[in-house]
């Protein structure tokens, strides 16, 4: 048995103490960093990623915070988040109400990205999904009040596809039409020009990240009218005309 006072034993103990201290300290720090990373990964509702950005979780595992997309953006739309911006520190984002995306045809930000956080598979800026415009406030939107503001519709780079004006009856005057700006998620790129140019002091139409803005239909839902069109006719055959059954026994007066 080794005596506890032998020098090699005490040096071994010191060594083990040191290793435990370093490993324990590092584990605590890493845990803190991991937890903070998890907590700080939430993207605020008004921060939009550049075009072609991977889904937020993948984006944070790929973006190396170099700012090359920021540098190649000709309109200074993008900026790198600073600590305290509530966007993951150093990652690129833009705020539509301040500077929207101008949808460059050659998408320089995507081409500049060295890491793949912005997907080079995006070659048509019209297919970008930076976010989705939502007409959030029907109480203040001038078109909802029956006026012909139409500014969000007019500035939309994908006019008549991403935003259309849908005619509706104006129940207040009972004589006029309401022309309701209506966003279509299949065509909206989330560029934010509508939000930027909304004439109200606080925009009635806002662009949110897709995950916030879009609902999702259950996978098993079928729309009967679409299925009917697809099949070229009713899937359950024509409606059977049921005979009108009358209780013949009833007296004539009741019939």
């Amino acid at each position, binding site marked *: 048995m080794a005596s506890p006072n032998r020098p090699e034993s005490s040096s071994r103990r010191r060594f083990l103490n040191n290793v435990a201290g370093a490993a324990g*300290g590092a584990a605590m720090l890493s845990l803190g960093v991991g937890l903070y*990373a998890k907590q700080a990964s939430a993207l605020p509702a008004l921060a939009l990623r550049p075009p072609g950005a991977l889904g937020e979780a993948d984006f944070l595992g*790929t973006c*190396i*915070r*170099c700012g090359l997309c920021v540098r190649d953006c000709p309109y200074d739309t993008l900026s790198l988040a*600073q600590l305290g911006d509530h966007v*993951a520190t*150093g990652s690129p984002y833009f705020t539509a109400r301040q500077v929207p995306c101008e949808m460059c045809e050659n998408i320089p930000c995507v081409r500049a990205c060295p*890491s793949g956080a912005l997907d080079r598979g995006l070659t048509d800026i019209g297919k970008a999904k930076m976010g989705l415009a939502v007409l959030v406030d029907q109480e203040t939107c001038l078109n909802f009040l029956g006026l012909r503001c139409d500014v969000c519709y007019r500035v939309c780079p994908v006019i008549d596809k991403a935003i259309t004006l849908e005619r509706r009856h104006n129940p207040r005057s009972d004589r006029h039409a309401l022309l309701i700006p209506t966003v279509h998620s299949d065509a909206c790129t989330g560029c934010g020009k509508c939000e930027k140019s909304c004439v109200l002091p606080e925009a009635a139409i806002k662009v949110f990240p897709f995950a916030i803005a879009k609902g999702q239909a259950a996978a098993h839902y079928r729309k009967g009218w679409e299925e009917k069109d697809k099949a070229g006719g009713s899937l359950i055959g024509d409606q059977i005309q049921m005979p009108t059954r009358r209780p013949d026994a009833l007296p004539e007066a009741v019939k």
Partner: protein
Amino acid sequence: MTAMAAAPNPAPAPARRMPPVPGRSAIAARGWHAAHKWLLARRVVQMATLLLFLAGPWFGIWIVKGNLSSSLALGVLPLTDPLLVLQSLAAGHLPYRDALIGAAIVALFYALVGGRVFCSWVCPVNVLTDAAAWLRRRLGIKSGRTPPEALRWWLLAGVLAASAATGSIAWEFVNPVSMLHRGVIFGIGAGLAIVAAVFVFDLLVASRGWCGHVCPMGALYALVGARSVLRVSAVRRAKCDDCMDCFTVCPEPQVIRPALKSVGGAGPLIQAPACTNCGRCIDVCSVDVFRFATRFDQRSES
């Protein structure tokens, strides 16, 4: 003060309480400039690197775009921080070829000249921690507790584990190195607090604490350059007069002893990966013990 001055014999006590200034004998022997040659060279390289990045946003001269995390020089040369690529891989993402090539170029360069040449010649935090170390020395601060030197290796592993666990590049949420460099170029925000914390940590808590004990970037660069060609060699170690100046200024003092004192028959080359090749030991030695050498140069002169 007046009482002190009026004392018949001005005791040497106040003078002794002043911490020794390392390099004084080197300045006396070779002059101020020669005794600060490598320090000045490092500061010039550090500032020039930063200026290259700032020339674009400040003066519209776009030689280098981006920051130390990843950059593109002259529109062709990609350079990427290897630790970022490793974290991205740990998070389960294969970066584009640009970033992979950039990281390979950086790793290859530092594998040749010494990994921690990044730390002492490029990293902007080095200026800060050098200043903290200098101030700590001048003020004679001995407070605090230095974390174990091995902390950085474990933290490097921990950072990669955290990236794998969260699927994100975890260290970038707090990394003061990229925060400072990116901050100078793109705007720093509250990141300034983290950078200031590093300075205070080095000044009050742990001597050479951040760069020498914590920073996982430095740990990775030490691994990258573990067998680097460029080394500091204590070629004229026989002349050493034990003034301890090199130990005082060295950011990783533990690396000097084996080479200088031939511990276990070691050669004059400083072999420890933690050596940053800063050359400060060369500067402050009044008897010219040290010089830069290649790892194949095992000679020692007397």
